[in-house]
Every structure is written in structure tokens, then in C-alpha cells.
């Protein structure tokens, strides 16, 4: 039996001082609005907001500048290297990167990236690829597995200015081992899924598993219990459309993405909750 670690995330404490300094470096004014466990600094077209540990998105920091649309074409989008450097400096200056990993069974790797995102414009005759904007971010890997999802994401989008149009920073302040659990085997997931989709009556249905990836991910929203960074299989399934009027798919059949827990630990809730105390 293979085992895998589940980790417990603690979101950063809400600190108005940190947010004010981050706002300063974005050239954002000082109009501060507080809610129960979140703070926003904003002007007419920009907002920087961060949540505390009790929010639906604990610790998530967002900055949005909608003077220019994320979907507009930015011919002179910032050079990717400069964008990556800006993001790295921003994270370092305001200590916004992932915090302490409180267990030597967690090996975290940070991989900065930046790239130009291209749009395609069609004038009725020709398709033309154009530079639309620059994206930069930091990919996280934990114990060799990708860390995925909106609760653990570091990225920024840049238009023509060095200051970004959007920043999304979602990391933990502390990451601790929560439990060791049995790793559900990949082929068990595949066969269970195929059985479930085919049911009893469509044994020959051409269900195809297009992709299966083991990643660490958190819940999309905080669910009022230990905030786990846990292993999941992201599975892309393709199954044919059984259309009316005898229609079949002339091209790619419909696909869907599923997020399936990759660990098993008896009655999970019983195992997980005692660890909170």
C-alpha cells in the first residue's frame, strides 16, 4: 500500500500595514475599507483586497486594475522577464510568498515563470496572432507533485505598463502535516470511473480517460474544517454524445474534468477531526 501526506494550511494573518505597503507599491491610494475579516484598498478603477483566515477564500489577495481590459490587445505588453522580476520583487518585498513549511516531510519547490499570451484576430480573410498581454507566476510543487487551484496560486497579468492589471496571490502562512493516508491507485480510479459512467446498461460505451494527473489541491472555498492541501486526481473523461435524430459527434466528443480525492483513510471525517484538537 502506498501512502501519501495530507497537509493543513493556515492562512496569513490579516495585516492592514502589509496591505497598505503593497498598495503603495502598486501606486494605489489610501481609501481603505474593512469588513469582518477582509480589507480592501481601492480607487475608482482599482482594488487591492485580502482576506483573513475566516473568509471563504482565506488569505487570498487580489489586485484588479480595470482601466484596461484583460481581454484587450496590448501591443506593447511588458517584456516577460521584466514582468517576472516585478512579481518576484513584489512577493519578496511584502513577504507574500508561501510561508514556513513546518514539517520535513513536505518538500516545496517554487518555479517562477513568465510568458507572452497571444490572441488571434480574424478580419474575415486572415488569422493573425498578436501579442495580447504578459503573464507571470510561480508554480508550486509539493513532494514532487504540482499544487493546483485558486487557493494556492501566484500569478499576475501585465498590459503595456510595468504595473500589473491583475495580481492573484494565494498561499499559506504555515503548512503542517495533517495525516498520512493510503494513496488510491490510479488504475482503481480509472476502472471505478468507467464502471460508473457506463452503468449497467451501456457496457460498450466508448468512455475514454484522456488524462489523469495527481496533484495537491485545496477546496475551492474554505469549508469550516481543517483547511487541507490534499492529493486529488484530476481526470479528463471523454464520452460520446448519444444525440437525438441519430446524431453522433462529427468531431471531438464532449469531455469533462473531474476532481477525485486520491486518499483513503477509513472514515475520513473521523480520522481528520480528532487532529484539530
Amino acid at each position, binding site marked *: 500500500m502506498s501512502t501519501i501526506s495530507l497537509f493543513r494550511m493556515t492562512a496569513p494573518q490579516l495585516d492592514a500595514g502589509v496591505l497598505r505597503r503593497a498598495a503603495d507599491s502598486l501606486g494605489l491610494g489610501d481609501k481603505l475599507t474593512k469588513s469582518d475579516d477582509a480589507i480592501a484598498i481601492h480607487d475608482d478603477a*482599482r482594488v487591492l483586497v485580502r482576506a483573513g483566515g475566516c473568509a471563504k477564500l482565506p488569505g487570498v489577495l487580489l489586485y484588479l486594475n480595470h482601466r484596461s481590459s*484583460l*481581454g484587450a490587445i496590448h501591443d506593447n505588453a511588458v517584456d516577460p522577464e521584466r514582468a517576472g522580476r516585478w512579481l518576484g520583487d513584489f512577493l519578496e518585498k511584502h513577504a507574500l510568498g508561501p510561508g514556513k513549511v513546518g514539517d520535513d516531510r513536505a518538500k516545496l519547490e517554487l518555479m517562477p515563470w513568465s510568458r507572452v499570451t497571444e490572441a488571434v484576430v480574424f478580419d474575415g480573410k486572415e488569422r493573425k496572432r498578436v501579442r495580447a498581454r504578459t*503573464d507571470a507566476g510561480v508554480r508550486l510543487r509539493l513532494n514532487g507533485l504540482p499544487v493546483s487551484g485558486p487557493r494556492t496560486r501566484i500569478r499576475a497579468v501585465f498590459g503595456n505598463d510595468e504595473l500589473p492589471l491583475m495580481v492573484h496571490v494565494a498561499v499559506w502562512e504555515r503548512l503542517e502535516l495533517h495525516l498520512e493516508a493510503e494513496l488510491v491507485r490510479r488504475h482503481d480510479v480509472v476502472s471505478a470511473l468507467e464502471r460508473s459512467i457506463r452503468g449497467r446498461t451501456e457496457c460498450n460505451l466508448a468512455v475514454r480517460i484522456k488524462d489523469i494527473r495527481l496533484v495537491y489541491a485545496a477546496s475551492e472555498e474554505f469549508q469550516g474544517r481543517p483547511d487541507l492541501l490534499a492529493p486529488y486526481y484530476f481526470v479528463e473523461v471523454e464520452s460520446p*454524445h448519444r*444525440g437525438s435524430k441519430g*446524431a453522433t459527434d*462529427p468531431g471531438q*466528443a464532449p469531455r*469533462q474534468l473531474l476532481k477525485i480525492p486520491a486518499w483513503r483513510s477509513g472514515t475520513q471525517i473521523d480520522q481528520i477531526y480528532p487532529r484539530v484538537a
Partner: protein
Amino acid sequence: MAGSVGVEWINDYNNLNKLTHEHEDAGGFYDELVNHDGWIGRFNWGNSNAWEDDFKRTAKGGHAPDWVETCDIVYFTGHGSPSGFYFRSDTPDDSLVEGDFVSGPTNGDMRLGTGDLDWLALEVCNTLQLNATIGGVNRDVFDRWADAFAGLHTILSFTTTSLDLATPGRYFAAFLDGRWLNVVYGFPFPVGVSPLKMIDAWFMMAEICQPDDVEAAVLYANTQGTDTQNDYAWGHGHVSPDPIRGASSWFSWTWVPHAC
């Protein structure tokens, strides 16, 4: 001036894998705009009440002018593919709102924007995939969807698969109406902040709902005197005039992705 909204959703497919959260997803979009932003709710049809016929042009026997064209924005959630988006097989007219080149070069179901419709949000997988092989030939996103623009400003969707979640519709609407701090962060902020542009709201919805490697995308049309990429929802800022083909010497479609 608020607009009007319609939503359709399907969990209970009889011809594809069943889904789970589409009623909450589309219902959240509808509820946010109608009950928190004063929009007129035209329809909220689900499962067997959601019909492909509501999106289909009259030349193909559909009733788009009676349904989707009565709204400024329509939100659909269910299954999709590069060929189009899917309904149950026992509802009118058939089970696929198809793009052009799926069953014939000019046989696409949608010619949208002849009435009120400005924006079509398709919270489905793969519909705006840039390239797709159909009948053994590559038919890109422009082949499949360009002719759907008959005054329509923007189609908002995904190029990849995406998770079946309850939150995207409500979050998208809250980014549009400026209530997103309350809705997304879950605390009552005493002031609203600026609403986002239509495209930004779509991309931010994907950004805070979907895992890495999911890619949202938009396809918008423009001509002389229009700037649909800068549209806000009605009542929250600038809305471009409709891009009408043939109204000037040029017309263009722009496809922009946003990888999460």
C-alpha cells in the same frame, strides 16, 4: 439602466454524463443579477425545460427571437465541445447547438444579436478551443463561431475542460455588478467597489474558481465605432454599440485566452 437575463442549465442529461451543480451555477448568476442588481429575469430553464430550440435561428426552425434574443445576456451551463453545447435528446429541437462546419459549412444554429442579445456566456467545456478537427479537417474557432455574430458582442467560454462547480455563475455576476467583495470573500463590505468589464469578470470568475491549466477564453467582434472589449454590464458603465457586419469597410473577431 439594468438589463435582462436568461439562464439555461442541465444536470440530468439522458444522452451524456450527468452533472451536479449546474442549477446552482446558473441559478446563482440569475439570482445575483435579478435580486441584487435589479435586472429583469426573462427565464431560468433547467433539465427538460432547457431547449436547444431557444438558441436556434428561425431559418433552421428555431425560436431564438422569442427566447435568447429577448435578453441582454444569456448564461448556459452544461456539457460542451468544440462543436457546440448540449441539451437532453428528448427536448426540441435537437440536442446540440452546433457551430458552423459541424453538419455543413453554413449550417450553424446561432445567428445572434439581431434582437437584444449582447453577450452569450457558455460555462461549458472546450467550446472556444482554438483548433478542432471536425470531419477530419481543422475548423478553428472562427470557422465555427464567426457567423454566430449578427450584432452579438461577445461569447465567453472555455477552451479546455473545467470543473462542474456551484459558484461560477454567482461570482461572474458579482464581478459584473460590483458586489464581488461581498459575494466572493463572504463578508459584507460597507461599500461596493468598481464593477468589472464583461471580459474581466469572466476571466476573474475562471481565475478564482478553476484549477491550474484550465483556460477560459472570449471571442468578441468589432467594427468601425465599436469597442466590445470594453463592455460593462448594463447599468455599470460603457456598452459598445452592436458590431454589425457590412456597416463599415472592416469587421473583425478577436479570440483571447486566459489560462488559470
